[in-house]
């Protein structure tokens, strides 16, 4: 069985700066796989490369055995990848539930004719889509905001909303970029539960996160980046005892 995500020799240079350099690792289906490292280590760049927002300078990413070379983010979504952003990307011109319903875009067959004349088939699909979105919002814990304008929601609620939107696409793998950033202790604990629930449903989770307690608690494996290079890779136990990691990151 091959890995769900296989990254080999990945390089990304911005001008002369190598944000990511020679990074290789693989993520098995069903894992919670975290990427950690100091600020500027290249974690978000790595996520942007995997999700097709950047194109690699060198190297290859395979999703389910297929090379993702030159695939657009929307084509990766069709292949089962979805993500959230460190700088949240919520459509503020829509309501909360519409944002989540947007996540089901690929699951909805819609043609212009049935849309313009609002045929019963469209209404049926919309109803079940709305129900699904509502279930997801309750699942992530922002069910009370259904028809609230996204622009009127709190930061913590928007973070959960973004996860609900990503889940709405029923991805095989979900990439969460610093989901705990800016959350308080209680919210982080709730987030940890949520990530666990997502993983228990069989969705592979890739995580970029600074909160070490969170990461060490839920990850199956970790990748430690430093200055764009892999410093270490392994289980939380191995990482915790790795002298390089302790020197560069944990112990300071």
């Amino acid at each position: 069985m091959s890995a769900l995500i296989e990254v080999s020799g990945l390089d990304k240079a911005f001008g002369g700066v190598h944000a990511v350099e020679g990074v290789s690792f693989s993520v098995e289906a069903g894992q919670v796989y975290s990427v950690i490292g100091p600020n500027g280590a290249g974690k978000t760049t790595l996520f942007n490369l995997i999700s097709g927002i950047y194109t690699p300078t060198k190297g290859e990413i395979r999703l389910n055995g297929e090379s993702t070379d030159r695939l657009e983010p929307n084509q990766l979504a069709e292949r089962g990848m979805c993500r959230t952003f460190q700088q949240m990307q919520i459509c503020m011109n829509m309501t909360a539930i519409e944002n989540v319903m947007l996540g089901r875009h690929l699951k909805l067959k819609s043609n212009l004719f049935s849309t313009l004349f609002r045929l019963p088939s469209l209404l049926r699909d919309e109803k079940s889509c709305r129900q699904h979105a509502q279930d997801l919002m309750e699942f992530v814990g922002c069910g009370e905001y259904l028809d609230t304008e996204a622009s009127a929601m709190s930061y913590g609620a928007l973070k959960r909303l973004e996860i609900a939107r990503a889940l709405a696409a029923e991805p095989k793998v979900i990439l969460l970029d610093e989901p705990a950033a800016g959350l308080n202790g209680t919210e982080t604990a709730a987030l940890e539960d949520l990530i666990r629930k997502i993983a228990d449903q069989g969705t592979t989770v890739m995580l970029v996160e600074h909160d070490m307690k969170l990461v060490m608690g839920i990850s199956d494996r970790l990748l430690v980046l430093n200055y764009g290079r892999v410093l270490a890779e392994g289980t939380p136990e191995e990482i915790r005892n790795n002298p390089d990691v302790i020197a560069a990151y944990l112990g300071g």
Partner: protein
Amino acid sequence: MLNQFMQSRLRGLIILAVILYALPAFLSNPFHYDLATQMAIIAATVVGLNLLVGFAGQISLGHAGFFGLGAYFTGIMTGNYGWSAIPALVVGGILVGILAWVVGRPILRLKGHYLSMATLAVGFIIAIVINNESQITGGPDGMPVPPFDVFGWELSPFGTYSLFGIELNGSQAWYLFAAAVLLVAVWLAQNLIDSPIGRALRSVHGSEVAARVVGVNTARYKSLVFVISAIYASVMGGLYAHFQGFITPAVASFDFSIVLITMVVLGGMGSTMGVILGAVVLKLLPQILTHFQEMEAVMFGLILMLTMIFMPKGLLPTLQLAVSKRLKKRAGGQA
């Protein structure tokens, strides 16, 4: 029951229908009717443009070009080739849609000012072609257009008609027809917005990168909405040509493109009812401002500037916000 009605998605459409068909009570002469008919046709054009600008967040400074193409196609086919109005409008809409798709694919990759420039250029090219091909378009002198007709039945501003036993002159009949067209245009636009396609369009505006990572092919949707708004413009241009009975290259001019986009911004981007109000206000202002004579243009500019400074969201959204705030305050006071 009343509450349910107010929540309904058809609320706006019903209110609009009531206003449109109650309006004749306040209109006394053919000039009023002609102005109202123009407003309705241009409002429908702006409703289409708003799909592109207000909902999908793209800009077009060349939309009068599509309006003009529709007007001239209809004028030429019905005037010189004996086509009936409906097929001319339909074929014109399809051809303009194809043209919009062809030019839209490359230029919609551009963003912001660059997209403005590119659409501006498209509008200019169309206007220049219409001006210069004087053998078929009449050039700067313009060309006459036969009245609107359906199966041999003509709708002319100079005819007389009877509807359910009520005698109507041509201007009145045209107004009722244009009002119905506007209602259909609004209904279609609302159906489009309140659908998976509409969500995808709005997400292009809200966050293009978010749209892409959930699988929205944003390039395709931008082209789609560009085409739809161009078809709106083309069909309305055709109707406008029939209504006026005479068209000049002004219908495709840069000035008119700017008027259209101003109506969207003034009325309220992303608010279908708002942009209709924008069209009405912008069409009405010059009539009211004639009292100021040579100061007319200055007053016009001043009003636009003040509106945008104090109501940056546009007329209707600002008013709605003020009303809902007041209602909330009152509800809070009682509790």
